[in-house]
């Protein structure tokens, strides 16, 4: 029997040389007369071990990593197709403590499954949620999502069930399900990994959502910076066949490519972009659930939210709700990024502390220097000092310290960071990406850069002006871009005042 070898095709693995490793493994096997079946899986999420090569043995999947082209010969010499000993051998993949300590629900098949194979997806439990949904009334599906406690994983953490009910109850001949895959926050990549590594899971979630709210069309809006995710989704759609049918008719999904606008991650700007216009935010109300894409009721969620749904239907709402803490139910795939030793995807229930995440999982800084600041939740998230590292990772606990979990991105900085420079960057990024609709964001961000420049030049009297400007942006902006940019700015100023002296 041919041995199966997995070499990730995930973008991070590719960036670390996975294609060359796959080629070398294939060539070396051929030269040695060994028959291998090479599968390009997604990533398990242990990015510092990528390319992480796995081989299927009688003892399960055995991992080796990080594999480079120049060690491939020695892997074969060590008989790695049978799981042989080698300095890079990590043992059974599932027993690697970093992975074993996680609670993988939405990412349960990530890095496990062949993302191009519907049969493999089904063989590993995929499709069960949709199968159950077909036997349920739409209102019962909505109830299950409500009961699970699932909240929007894109950042706003709005209860998903309320959105679903609103769209279900809206009377219209045409409704839409839109997947927001415009994952623009620096430090986040869980959407990308899921689309590349388990695309059928997202499609299944969308089909369930369509059946629940009465929509037969779905759009996935993927940012243009993610060409590999777009390709993976298109390959999955081509292979999906009748899989997405809801028992009444086909659920049509179309992948649309964004064009490099950060603000299109805001749901109404995204809808404008899908309609072929500039990605400028709309006034709310009307909510997209009432008047969304092309003026029709639209259920819009990010990737992880929709991909969480199949598991909720398959395992039951109560099983999902049991995870987590307080009013934050379920799990969140956190993404360890920046100056971190063991970066990657950590799916755990809400409630772990930030310290546990960055030290127990992350292993501290990559540089070996002390960690000084951690930005949680992307470019609009707060910079937290060491004194706040013991905050539990749940929505309410983070709100209580003026921060947010956002999309679960955790960017670590060591003690060489200049926090005034980071504050300046936050304003600068807002100036670059502002859609221009409202003045506080459009003009305020540019003035913010100037004010911080004066503070950095020694004019401390400008600090009051910066606080004032931030207040105006918070109160007067039309969307999160302008109203949340002050969060990184002021958290940097308040927690690290010495950098503004």
């Amino acid at each position: 029997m041919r041995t199966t070898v997995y070499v990730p095709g995930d973008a991070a693995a590719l960036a670390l040389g996975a294609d060359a490793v796959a080629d070398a493994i294939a060539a070396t096997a051929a030269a040695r007369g060994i028959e291998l079946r090479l599968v390009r899986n997604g990533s398990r999420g242990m990015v510092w071990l990528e390319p992480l090569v796995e081989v299927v043995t009688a003892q399960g999947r055995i991992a080796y990593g990080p594999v480079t082209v120049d060690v491939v010969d020695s892997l074969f010499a060590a008989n790695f197709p049978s799981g042989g000993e080698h300095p890079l051998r990590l043992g059974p993949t599932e027993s690697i403590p970093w992975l074993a300590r996680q609670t993988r629900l939405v990412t349960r098949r990530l890095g496990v499954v062949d993302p191009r194979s519907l049969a493999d997806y089904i063989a590993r439990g995929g499709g069960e949620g949709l199968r159950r949904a077909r036997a349920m009334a739409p209102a019962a599906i909505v109830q299950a999502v409500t009961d699970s406690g699932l909240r929007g994983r894109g950042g706003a953490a709005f209860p998903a069930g309320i959105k679903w009910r609103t769209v279900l109850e809206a009377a219209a001949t045409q409704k839409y399900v839109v997947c927001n895959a415009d994952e623009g926050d620096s430090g986040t990549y869980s959407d990308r990994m899921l689309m590349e590594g388990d695309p059928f899971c997202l499609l299944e979630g969308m089909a369930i959502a369509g059946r629940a709210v009465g929509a037969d069309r779905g759009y996935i809006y993927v940012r243009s910076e993610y060409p590999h995710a777009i390709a993976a989704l298109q390959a999955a759609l081509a292979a999906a066949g009748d899989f997405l049918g809801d028992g009444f008719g086909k659920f049509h999904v179309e992948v649309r490519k964004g064009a490099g606008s950060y603000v299109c991650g805001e749901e109404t700007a995204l809808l404008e972009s899908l309609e072929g216009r500039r990605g400028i935010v709309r006034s709310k109300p009307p909510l997209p659930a009432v008047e969304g894409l092309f003026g029709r009721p639209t259920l819009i969620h990010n990737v992880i939210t929709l991909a969480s749904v199949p598991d909720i239907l398959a395992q039951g709402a109560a099983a999902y709700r049991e995870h987590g803490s307080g009013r934050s139910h379920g799990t969140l795939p956190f993404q360890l990024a920046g100056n971190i030793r063991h970066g990657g995807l950590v799916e755990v229930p809400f409630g772990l502390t930030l310290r546990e995440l960055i030290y127990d999982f992350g292993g501290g800084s990559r540089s070996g220097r002390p960690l000084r600041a951690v930005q949680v939740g992307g470019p609009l998230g707060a910079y937290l000092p060491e004194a706040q590292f013991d905050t539990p990772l749940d929505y309410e606990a983070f709100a209580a310290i003026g921060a947010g979990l956002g999309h679960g991105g955790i960017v670590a900085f060591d003690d060489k960071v200049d926090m005034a420079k980071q504050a300046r960057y936050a304003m600068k990024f807002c100036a670059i990406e502002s859609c221009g609709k409202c003045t506080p964001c459009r003009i305020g961000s540019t003035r913010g850069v100037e004010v911080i420049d004066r503070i950095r030049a020694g004019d401390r009297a400008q600090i009051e002006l910066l606080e004032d400007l931030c207040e105006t942006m918070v109160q007067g902006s039309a969307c999160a871009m302008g109203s949340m940019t002050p969060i990184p700015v002021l958290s940097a100023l308040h927690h690290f005042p010495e950098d503004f002296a």
Partner: protein
Amino acid sequence: MDIAATLARILDAHRDRPGALLPVLHEVQNAVGFIPPETVPAIATALNLSRAEVHGVISYYHHFRQEPTGRHVVRVCCAEACQAVGGEVLAEHARTRLAGSDVTLEPVYCLGLCACGPAVQVDETQLHAAMTPAKFDALVARLEAER
């Protein structure tokens, strides 16, 4: 390349799609390398838009270009996660190295490679992680040597 013929083919394929403008612009840019200003009137007519609307969309999105690029486009991530591991030093190095080169340098704000930065993308498909100035020079030398 016969731009008019290419454009006609693209417009025929997309004109009846709802919200067709972005897909059309992507295809034009993929085929031509940028969106030539002379294509704007035909796009506007086909999609029943004003030229101002089409131009407004092209100029709004960072991804769309109105001028040709060099032989290759190198994008260096300038966002926070890459800043935390030397992204700014790399970006500055890239600016110096590529001044006057026929390899075009663009900033990009996150490639989703935040656990293995600094990240670089070449021609929208090729990815490089854990980039250093020395590795960058080797990469650029390869790109410049290609004919």
